[in-house]
């Protein structure tokens, strides 16, 4: 039986992601695990995550999952979500600067902070809520998802990929930023498909069926 493994390294709410994947998985089994051997047996992997990047990288290393992610990224379909996407870049400015997994060239940087006091309509950080995602190139993950669809975001840092070819979608908040990345068998979203109602479910269903 085909399986999708959610990498559980103790950062955040895997409940909703697990339930969302189960809903769209069809015949695919959903496995939530921190055990490298269990995860290696899965046909595809999801790297989720909320929280700070330093703690995230520390936990991945402590559980010996960072090598697993790097190896699996060469051969299995893999999806990064939110912080799980950010650690796929080479470096994050968060927590004073932390080297990350380097699956996508480029770095993660903070949105410009608004003035602490001032106009009511200044853009605040975190970027929190529903925003539109512009699809900058075609990809099977977008099947059935309209261009400029709404997705739920919550983050203060965003990816700056070095390679424009890796950008799959962008969104606007203080500037245009890359919110979806893809290369080979990797795809990554800054927003939360598991929190983005039916449109998010479509993305997750596409990932479960994706055959890169």
């Amino acid at each position, binding site marked *: 039986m085909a399986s999708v493994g959610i990498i559980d390294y103790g950062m*955040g*709410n895997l*409940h*909703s992601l697990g*339930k*969302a994947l189960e809903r769209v998985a069809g015949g695919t089994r959903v496995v939530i695990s921190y055990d490298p051997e269990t995860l290696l047996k899965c046909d595809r992997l999801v790297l989720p995550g*909320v*929280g*700070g990047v330093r*703690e995230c990288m520390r936990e991945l290393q402590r559980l010996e999952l960072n090598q697993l992610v790097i190896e699996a990224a060469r051969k299995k379909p893999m999806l990064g979500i939110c*912080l799980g996407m950010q650690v796929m870049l080479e470096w994050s400015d968060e927590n004073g600067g932390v080297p990350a997994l380097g699956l996508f060239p480029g770095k993660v940087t903070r949105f410009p*902070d*608004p*003035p*602490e*006091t*001032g*106009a*009511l*309509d*200044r*853009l*605040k*950080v*975190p*970027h*929190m*809520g*529903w*925003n*539109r995602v512009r699809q900058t190139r075609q990809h099977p993950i977008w099947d059935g998802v309209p261009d400029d669809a*709404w997705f*739920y*975001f*919550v*983050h*203060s840092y965003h990816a700056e990929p070095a390679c424009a070819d890796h950008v799959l979608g962008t969104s*606007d*908040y203080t500037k245009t930023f890359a919110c979806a990345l893809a290369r080979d068998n990797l795809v990554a979203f800054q927003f*939360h498909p*598991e*929190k*983005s*109602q*039916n449109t*998010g*479910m479509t993305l997750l269903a596409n990932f479960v069926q994706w055959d890169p």
Partner: protein
Amino acid sequence: MLAKRIIPCLDIDRGRVVKGVKFEDVQDAGDPVEVARKYDAQGADELVFLDITASVDDRPTLFQTVEAVARQIYIPLTVGGGVRSCADVRALLSAGADKVSINTSAVENPDFVTEAGDRYGVQCIVVAIDAKRVSKKKEPPRWEVFTHGGRRATGLDAVEWAKTMVRKGAGELLVTSIDRDGTKSGYDNELLAAISSAVSVPLIASGGVGDLEHLYQGLATGGADAVLAASIFHQGTYTVGEAKKYLADKGVRIRL
């Protein structure tokens, strides 16, 4: 660009949705899963659950409710009420909450906000501020923070407290006017604007919505990033969809 959010609030008491006036006179308003599903179908952008009893005995009931809702609803869910420790935060996140709201315990121990934000990420830490206007007429407006469901004065100035909480690591503020809550006379927009212009994180307006113009004023005059309402939705006065259409027609950026 980012849309403004419409957030129905479900006050939860021992596994049921309830609605009170000025934090008192509590009435039954339905089953949380049914109510949450209805709002999701109507296009709610998020849901907030506030456990208004929050007695230790009832915690397992709350976790079951959160789990049951999170299993069926794929929009963000914030849960508050009686959150006192990182263990509480973790338990709620594990049950399926996306954010937790901290109120009384932030006043008792401001460093708890920092600790929870460091461990679980500031994006999932909402600090709820219940504020009451304490200035006299003709004085410049001033609001004081109250805790314990609006019953206990703290001596803290609400605007200064909001700034402190953001410094301590709050990712979002949920600001309720105790004077307005349940009165259907509109948000205290002066309070909202005073806080929104003083902090750099998103602000959820709460307390006092009676019609759709109140939602608009909370966004336009109060400068809120999201508007929370309970009774107008529970009583069926308006659907979330009607609220969103009203706001969109007035030029507010809304996810329709």
